[in-house]
Structures are given as structure tokens and as C-alpha cells.
């Protein structure tokens, strides 16, 4: 560890704070992304169920989920903008050399987010007065647009891992750019499928866990039942698929990024019959692993299907090309795999229990674990990204451009890093506080009853606004608000 940080410090002084700021802001942004990608699907399922079967509980869920999605979408827009600035502020060397290559997918992203923002606005504000099915169909494209947005961004990251679609000229500048090959690089199918599944798992388990907590506290009505069953079933179906996809990616990394694979699995010396270490610390000075559980031969077997598989070890990789923090990469990978495995067990239990009783499973232990599943999937997402990104070091573009060559030469990175940490701490706390306030507000009235049923009559909007603003004479404002927000009867 010490030597890795010495190695880091020997790069430009801006490198460490810049990486730390980039990693932190990405890790924050990624918390909002699963909700932006997957929550729309959940709300549409609930909306459909509500409309088809006249189910008030399902409709109430859909309305609330869409409201929460609006909030997370907005915070995602803020943190996403910061990321866009950071590409230039922190990594001008990256945009200078490769901007016209990795920017290609981003050109699509802008459109996808724009469309998503517009459709989400129509959907969220359309509950009261649009015709039910019209409203539903306006929401319908949102999950697909979100997938296009995710595709374009993940494409950038997978291109950083598997650069393609250009050739370098003598000055080291890319030429002969081919947008199709850039976007559909070799790593994209794996990264995208793994990430989308991860996003759906995190969002569904998180939403379910909110209602599981309610269930544990004795709120066992149809509203809570649906709030658990709809999302949890999706998550449970995806969990085993995710492990299979993850296994494929690990093999892809083994074949294409041997240095990263060596770091993920702490392979010290090249050879066959590599042991698998569960956790354990790597010492770069002696190239050894201490602690952890050692399972002989398993790593070779996982990589190539037989213990005779040869795996490259860290000793065979020039020191300047090794991952900067092997222990972190390895721990992150193991945490992700551990969580993936546990979630499969949880899903299996749920499947059996549901198949037998057609209800939320009874066991208290199950409920406690299910309540934690959301947070735990998020931890897996963060761990997965740490594996990918830290394991990619020291390259910003795999085997082509070094992170240290891309970092800014501006002087104030440490300052912006601190400012951003403080701001985001505030933003994070505020977001959670607001989401909690929403939940508390809604708990007072779990199912939205008839007199506020959606799709009610449409008052004359302009007239409504005028009378609202008129009613808004300072002192009366506190009481006027309820009426002003669209409902006339209390």
C-alpha cells in the first residue's frame, strides 16, 4: 500500500486529488442513476396494473414512485453536470487527445436525457388531468429512452477499457475515426448488460425494502404487499442472471485486460493452478498476499474452466503498468461477488416461499435480510465500479493513454476537491431528508382514496392559476397552499 501511494505521489501533484474528486463525484452520481433508469419501469408496471384492474393501491404506488423519480432525476441532473465539467476541469489531456472519439457516444446522451426530462415532466404532472391511458402511453417510452442514455455513457466507459474505432497517427492523435466501432466496442455488450441488470436490481430491491420495513412494523395491507411483490420479484429474477453475466465479464477481463485481472484476483506470479484468495492483503514490496482464505486451483478454474489454465501474475507486469491499488481492486471485486452470491440465495428463498404461499414470505429473518437488500445492491454497484476503474489504472485509455498524462495542470484541484466533498455531503443529506419527509407524509395515508382519485375532471387551468395567485395574499398563503396545489376540497 505505502509504495502504491508513493508511486502515485510521483505523478503530477494534481493526480491524487483529481482522481479522488472524479471517483467521489462518479460514485455519488451512480447512486441516483439506478433510480433514474429503473424506477420508471416500476411505476409503469404499477400504473398498468392499476388501470387494468382498477386497483387503487397500485395506482397510489405508481403516483408516489413517479414523484420520487422526479426528485432523483433532478439531483442526477445536477451531479451529472458536475461530471461533464470535470472531464475538462480534471482531465483536459483526455479531451484534448481523445475528445473527438469518446465524445461520439455523448452526443447521443444529450438527446436521450433531454427526451427523458420532457417525458418525465409530462408524466409526473399529468396524473390529475390527463386521460388515463394517454397518460400511461406518455410514460411508456421513458424506460427505453433511459436505456439509450445508459448505453451511450456506458459505451464511453467500455471504450476506455476496450479502445476501438480509430488509429493513432505519428503524433499520437487519433485518426480514421469510426463512430460505430467506437460505440459498439468489444466491452460494451458485457458492461451494458451487467450494468443495466445491476441498476434494476438496486432500484427494485431498494424500493421493496421501503415496504418491507413497513411490513415489519405491522403495516400489512395490500398497498405494502404490492410495494414488496412487484419490485422484489423483478430483483429476484435478475439476481441469478447477474451472477452469470458477471462470470462472463470476469472471463472477458482475463482475456483482454490481464493486468486488471491479476489485480482483481491478486495473482502474484504467472502460472497454472492459481489459487483463489477470498480477501487478503497484497504487499507490493514483496509481491505476496497475507490473510484471506486461499482456495487452491479455483482461480485458474474460474478463468479458463480448468486448473491448468495459465493466469498472468503481477510479477510479469512492469511495475509502472500495474493497478495502482491492488488491494482495493481485489477487495472491491470480492465484495461484489460475495453480495451477488448472497442475493441469489435470497432470491431462491423468496421463489420457493412465494411459490408455496403466494404471499410475502413470512420468515422474520427473510424480511430483515430483504430490508437490507437495497443498500447491499448499492454496495455491489459501488464495488463493481471501483473494480473497473481502479483496476484500469494507470491507464485512462487502456494500454494507450495514461491517467497521469491526462490530468490538469491547474493548481487548485485540492481546493475544488474539498469544496465538492462538502457540497455533496450537504446535497446527500438534504436528498435523503427530503425523501424521508416524503415517505412520512405518505405514510399518513397509504392508499389514495376516491376523492383524490387520479384522472379527475379537468378544471380550467388558466382560471385556476389566476384564482390561485389571487388567493395568495401573504398571510393567507399558508392555508391557501393546499387549494392551490390543485385540489379544492380538503
Amino acid at each position, binding site marked *: 500500500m505505502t509504495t502504491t501511494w508513493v508511486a502515485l505521489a510521483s505523478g503530477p501533484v494534481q493526480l491524487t486529488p483529481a482522481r479522488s474528486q472524479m471517483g467521489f463525484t462518479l460514485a455519488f452520481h451512480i447512486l441516483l442513476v439506478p433510480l433514474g433508469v429503473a424506477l420508471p419501469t416500476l411505476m409503469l408496471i404499477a400504473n398498468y396494473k392499476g388501470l387494468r384492474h382498477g386497483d387503487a393501491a397500485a395506482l397510489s404506488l405508481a403516483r408516489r414512485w413517479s414523484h420520487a423519480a422526479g*426528485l432523483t432525476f433532478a439531483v442526477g441532473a445536477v451531479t451529472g*453536470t458536475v461530471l461533464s465539467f470535470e472531464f*475538462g476541469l480534471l482531465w483536459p489531456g483526455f479531451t484534448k487527445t481523445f475528445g473527438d472519439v469518446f465524445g461520439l457516444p455523448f*452526443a447521443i446522451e*444529450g438527446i436521450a436525457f433531454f427526451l427523458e426530462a420532457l*417525458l418525465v415532466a409530462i408524466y409526473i404532472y399529468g396524473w390529475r388531468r390527463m386521460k388515463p391511458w394517454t397518460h400511461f402511453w406518455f410514460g411508456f417510452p421513458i424506460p427505453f429512452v433511459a436505456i439509450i442514455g445508459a448505453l451511450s455513457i456506458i459505451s464511453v466507459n467500455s471504450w476506455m477499457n476496450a479502445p476501438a474505432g480509430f488509429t493513432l497517427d505519428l503524433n499520437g492523435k487519433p485518426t480514421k475515426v469510426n*463512430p460505430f466501432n467506437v460505440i459498439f466496442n468489444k466491452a460494451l455488450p458485457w458492461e451494458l448488460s451487467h450494468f443495466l441488470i445491476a441498476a434494476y436490481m438496486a432500484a427494485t430491491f431498494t424500493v421493496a425494502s421501503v415496504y418491507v420495513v413497513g411490513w415489519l412494523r405491522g403495516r400489512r395491507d395490500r398497498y405494502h404487499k404490492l410495494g414488496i411483490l412487484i419490485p422484489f420479484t423483478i430483483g429476484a429474477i435478475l439476481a441469478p442472471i447477474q451472477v452469470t453475466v458477471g462470470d462472463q465479464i470476469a472471463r472477458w477481463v482475463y482475456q483482454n485486460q490481464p493486468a486488471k485481472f491479476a489485480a482483481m484476483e491478486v495473482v502474484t506470479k504467472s502460472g497454472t493452478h492459481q489459487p483463489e484468495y477470498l480477501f487478503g492483503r497484497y504487499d507490493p514490496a514483496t509481491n505476496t498476499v497475507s490473510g484471506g482464505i486461499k482456495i487452491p486451483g479455483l482461480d485458474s478454474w474460474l478463468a479458463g474452466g480448468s486448473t491448468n489454465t495459465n493466469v498472468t501474475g503481477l510479477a510479469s507486469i512492469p511495475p509502472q503498468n500495474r493497478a495502482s491499488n491492488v488491494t482495493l481492486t481485489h477487495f472491491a471485486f470480492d465484495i461484489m461477488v460475495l453480495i451477488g452470491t448472497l442475493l441469489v440465495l435470497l432470491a431462491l428463498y423468496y421463489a420457493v416461499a412465494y411459490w408455496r404461499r403466494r404471499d410475502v414470505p413470512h420468515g422474520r429473518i427473510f424480511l430483515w435480510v430483504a430490508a437490507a437488500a437495497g443498500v447491499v445492491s448499492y454496495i455491489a454497484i459501488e464495488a463493481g465500479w471501483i473494480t473497473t476503474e481502479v483496476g484500469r489504472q494507470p491507464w485512462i485509455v487502456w494500454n494507450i493513454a495514461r491517467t497521469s498524462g491526462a490530468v490538469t495542470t491547474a493548481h487548485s484541484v485540492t481546493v475544488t476537491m474539498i*469544496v465538492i466533498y462538502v457540497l455533496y455531503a450537504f446535497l446527500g443529506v438534504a436528498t435523503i431528508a427530503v425523501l424521508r419527509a416524503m415517505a412520512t407524509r405518505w405514510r399518513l395515508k397509504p392508499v389514495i382514496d376516491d376523492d383524490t382519485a387520479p384522472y379527475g375532471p*379537468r*378544471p380550467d387551468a388558466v382560471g385556476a392559476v389566476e384564482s390561485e395567485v389571487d388567493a395568495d395574499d401573504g398571510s393567507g398563503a399558508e392555508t391557501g397552499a393546499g387549494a392551490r396545489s390543485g385540489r379544492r376540497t380538503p
Partner: protein
Amino acid sequence: MTAADLVAGVIVIGMTLYAWSGIADFGAGFWDLIAGGKAHGLRARALIDEVITPVWEANHVWLIYILVVTWTAFGGAFGSIMTALFVPLALAAVGIVFRGANFALRKDAARSGARQWSGWLFGIGAIMTPFFLGTSVGAILSGRVPPNGVGNPVNAWVNAVSITVGLLTVALGAFVSAAYLVVECARRGVPELREYFRIRALIAGIAALLCGVAVAIALRVQERSMFNRLTSRSIPLIVLGVLALGAAFVMSGRGVARGLRVVAAVGVAALVWAWAIAQYPYLLPFRLTIADGAGSSTSMKWLLGWFIVALVTVIPMLIVLYTLDQRGHLGEDPMTSVRDVGADASAGRRT
């Protein structure tokens, strides 16, 4: 016209749209900040909130679009700008976090104290972001961003031209938003607020005029060649901009709502394009041209292609949103929103 020129044009279109909408939002944030104490500023704040909340996210996407297209088309210049202007651009981004946090959270904040706080953030962001974005434009326009190397991190933006352009941006944003708000008051039938914003539009208009004169003097003294370009080939646009803004000033002074928004928008657009044309064909005056700074020609065509896709997908959707809104099909869902928290709650009601 090469493909690179067209892409540069697309970036200026993005800047124009951002100046119309985004900078105007910030201007409204400025009025929010100085609207006075809690009870006193309640009505003005409620109107500002109600007008901006549904659209700020869409207004804001233009900025992201500008960033993305610039680094894809002109990665070198983008890297140089971001390096030389690290400080002002980082501060602009901080202002954006302030403003975005306000919009995302204020509506649902449970306690009114928290909402008060978030209004403050909005206001501070509303001064920071346009000021520092304007400062950066001033630095680029006065040739202080070298195509290679760092430049002087302080002198690049702490100089008369940069600072006056920053102030002009704040003042213009305040003026334009006050003019827009006069129109909104007319549309929503709230005469007292109309008077309130009418006076503010006049004050901000005078401030903007003074800032504009200051920019001209600073350019004349410090950046003679850019000044000459602005007063020769860009002069029609400068004249158009000044006339249109002058007309908007007179119209808001008389409280005329009809056509006010369009006239103000024309004025702002003319100024943005006057800058762009004065600078042409340079990306970084007078050292890096569009042709020299452009990335691969495939990427240029790609960007233009997606710009067309954006036109045919986003614009119809914007029209749908606008039409649904005008017909009253959209409104805050009362069962999921805060209902008992004072005027701010009405903010997001209409999209």
C-alpha cells in the same frame, strides 16, 4: 462553410438558447435572493418558483449539450479553456450545484426553514454562475486562453474585460428575467407583481446598459483588435441587440407585455452572435482557428447528424409539453406533493 464551421454554429445556437433560458433562470434567482424577508418576498418568490420549476431542467440541458459538443468537436480548445479558466469555471459549476439543489429539493422540503435556506443557495448560485460564465467568455474573447500551456491562472480572468463581461451577464440575466416575469404577471393576472417586476426590469436594464458601456471601454483600452472587429463586421448585430434591448426596456417600463419576451430574446441573441461573428474564424482569438482546432471530420459529421436528430425529436416533444401545459392537462399531483407548507408549495404546480 466547412463541417467544423457548422458545428461551431451549433455550439453558438446552444449558447443562444442557454442565454435565453438558463441565464434568465439565474436572473430570476437574483430577484429571488433580493426579494426581501420571508413574508415580504413571499409572492414574488412564489411566482418565480412557479414559472421556473417545471422548465429549469430542460433549460439546463443546453449547457450540458454545449460542453459535450465542444469537447467532441474542439477537444483541444476545450482542454485549454478548462485549464486556463479552471477557477472561474469550477466556481460556475459550484453555482450550478447550488441552484440545482434548490430546485430539486425545495419543493418537498418539509420545514419552511429548509426552504428559506435553499432559496439562499439559489440566489448565490444565481450570481456566481452567470458571473463566472461571463468572465470566461470575456477571457476567451480577449485572447487570454493560450492554445497550449496553462496561461496565467489569475490574469486570464481577473482583468477589466473579463470582469465587465461577467457583470454584464449578471445584469442582462436580471433584466431579461424581470421582463419575462412582467409577461408572466400579465398572463396570470397579478397586476401588483407586474408593477414590482416592471420597476426591477428598469433598474436592471440601466445596470446592464452601464455594464455594456464598461465592456466597450475595457475592450477599447485593452483589446483594440477585438474592439475593432466588434465595431466593424459585428456592428449590425450590435446595433440590433442594443435597439431590441432598448425596446424591451421601454416596453417593460410601460408595462407592455405583448411581444416583450420576443424583443428581449432577439436582443440577447444578437449580442451572442455579435461575439461569435467578431471572433470568427477563431476558436481562441487570435491564435487557434476553427479549422486548426477541429477534431476528426467524421466526428464533425456525426455531431451534425445528431443535431438533426435532436431537432426532429426534442422539438416536437417540447411542443407537446408546451401544448399540454397551455391546455391545462398538467399540474402537480396533490397527493404526492407537499400541501400545507406555504406559498412555495404552489411552485411546481404547472408544468
